[in-house]
């Protein structure tokens, strides 16, 4: 790992619990991302995914440890790290253009109105909302609102995008379209992206790396799964890829059973060296202690049947 664009180093989050006790959501969490990488985090509710994202965004501070982005420890929020909120978080008293322009004028304070407007318009066009600039968020559908959220995040040309289940409130069709657009935009602009999701297929379609987290409290990052699908994958033939089901089954097995039992079954789990799982390359698979290797197929066969 030479190019660590983002490095989360041993962070913990604790809350004071009842009767002076402290609840540890997670501790000693290490995680790194390369520049331009699209990473998804999957885990059950309560494992601290959103807390990790908020710490990355600077909205929350870790109880221990540090986060280094682009060679610098982060302190607070930054215009380099844009957040796309689950609930889109548009300002309802501003129009579409007003919401995006607010972000633009926050980044470039010396710009005049015309320049801000032109810049905002570019990003509204990019997410396909041309013609709706003067509508208020209440007049938009859920999908359109989230498009505005994406345009607002992109308009400040961040170094990385943080997304907290951005599509979970949308219907399946809209979700598909927006996933396509986010993927296209991230590839085009070389964004580093960190996304929380509950949707396994979304993670497989979008991510280069998938982080699997065990259940909280006391959640750990169990595995980093490298996505074996090619970078120029398409939505329509995704499921025909020979490794698709192997990957999907691996993640679902983790969510269904191993996310509960992982901590107990893997006492020598080293949070600093989280096993990297390469689906379909048995030679490179790091099998965790006491667990039989999960990847026994070879590319080209029908991996879904062996699981």
């Amino acid at each position, binding site marked *: 790992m030479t190019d660590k664009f983002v490095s989360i180093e041993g962070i913990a989050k604790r809350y004071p619990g009842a009767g002076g006790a402290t609840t540890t959501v997670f501790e000693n969490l290490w995680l790194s991302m390369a520049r331009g990488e699209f990473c998804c985090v999957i885990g059950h509710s309560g494992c601290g995914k959103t807390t990790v994202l908020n710490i990355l965004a600077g*909205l929350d501070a870790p109880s221990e440890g540090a986060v280094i982005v682009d060679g610098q420890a982060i302190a607070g929020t930054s215009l380099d790290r844009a957040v796309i909120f689950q609930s889109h*978080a548009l300002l309802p008293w501003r129009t579409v253009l007003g919401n995006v322009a607010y972000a633009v004028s926050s*980044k470039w304070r010396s710009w005049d109105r015309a320049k801000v407007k032109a810049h905002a318009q570019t990003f509204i066009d990019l997410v396909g909302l041309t013609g709706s600039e003067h509508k208020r968020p209440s007049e938009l559908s859920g999908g359109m609102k989230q498009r505005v959220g994406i345009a607002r995040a992109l308009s400040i040309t961040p170094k990385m995008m943080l997304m907290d289940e951005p599509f979970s409130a949308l219907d399946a069709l809209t979700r598909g379209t927006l996933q396509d657009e986010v993927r296209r935009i991230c590839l085009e602009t070389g964004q580093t992206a960190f996304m929380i999701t509950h949707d396994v297929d979304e993670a497989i379609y979008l991510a280069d790396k998938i982080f699997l987290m065990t259940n909280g409290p006391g959640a750990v990052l169990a595995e980093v799964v490298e996505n074996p699908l090619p970078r120029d994958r398409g939505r329509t033939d995704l499921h025909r890829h020979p490794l698709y089901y192997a990957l999907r089954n691996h993640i679902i097995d983790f969510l269904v059973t191993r996310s509960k039992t992982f901590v107990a079954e893997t006492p020598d789990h080293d949070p600093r060296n989280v096993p990297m799982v390469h689906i379909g390359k048995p030679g490179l698979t790091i099998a965790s202690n006491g667990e039989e290797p999960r990847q026994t197929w070879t590319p080209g066969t029908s991996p879904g049947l062996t699981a």
Partner: protein
Amino acid sequence: MTSSLRLRAGLVSIVLLAAFLGVWHLATRSTAPVATMSPEYAKLMGLTATQGKSAMPGPLDVGAKLWEHVKRPFYDNGPNDKGLGIQLGYSIARVGTGYLLAVLVAIPLGFLIGMSPLLSKALDPFIQVLKPISPLAWMPLALYTIKDSSVSAIFVIFICSIWPMLLNTVFGVASVRKEWINVARTLEVGTVRRAFTVILPAAAPTILTGMRISIGIAWLVIVAAEMLVGGTGIGYFVWNEWNNLSITNVIIAILLIGVVGMLLDQILARFTRMVTFPE
């Protein structure tokens, strides 16, 4: 459908008004027996005893008197005989001054308290104690310290209209949606700009609601305050006409107090609609 509903509602309102006026008219007809008495004695007695006229004015008497006032709203025949327009003007000016002063204090202070949990907790006991005090209870203290009855009335308006505005501003500012604050934080928006571009628009409907409650209370209180301080104003007019035993004028004043109060409320309601945003 809605227009027909409005039409029907308007019709019912008119029928109710007519019924009320009719009952009032019937109830105040001159029916009492007329006693025979010497003209000397009759001069000392009211019209009730001499002509059997009801002591309560009927709607026609009130209407005729109201028309007189409407024709000459701004006459000034000395301290005890001024047009209703002048009297209402004094009251509105007092309410306006006290209210605006309260706005100038309550909204910035409410912002500070709402944004600072420390101040909020520290000032809470003071607000809780001061809020339920009847504004008129301040009157002796105000008269003693300010030594001017008119300014004291303004002070009473100020003190009574400050609390709903202050509390609503605090509440509105403190309950701005976390995600909107987070948007501003991720965009590195400074505290002052955040206050004006996120917190103020988000809290504006709540603040305006507080202002609307305040103007209602201020208008309620001015009548009582002017009864106490005397001299001018619609409250003084009511008390003066009571001393004159002119029930007709008292009824007219009551009607006008209601109308002006409604107008003040409607103005604030319009402002509230202007800043309300659909979600």
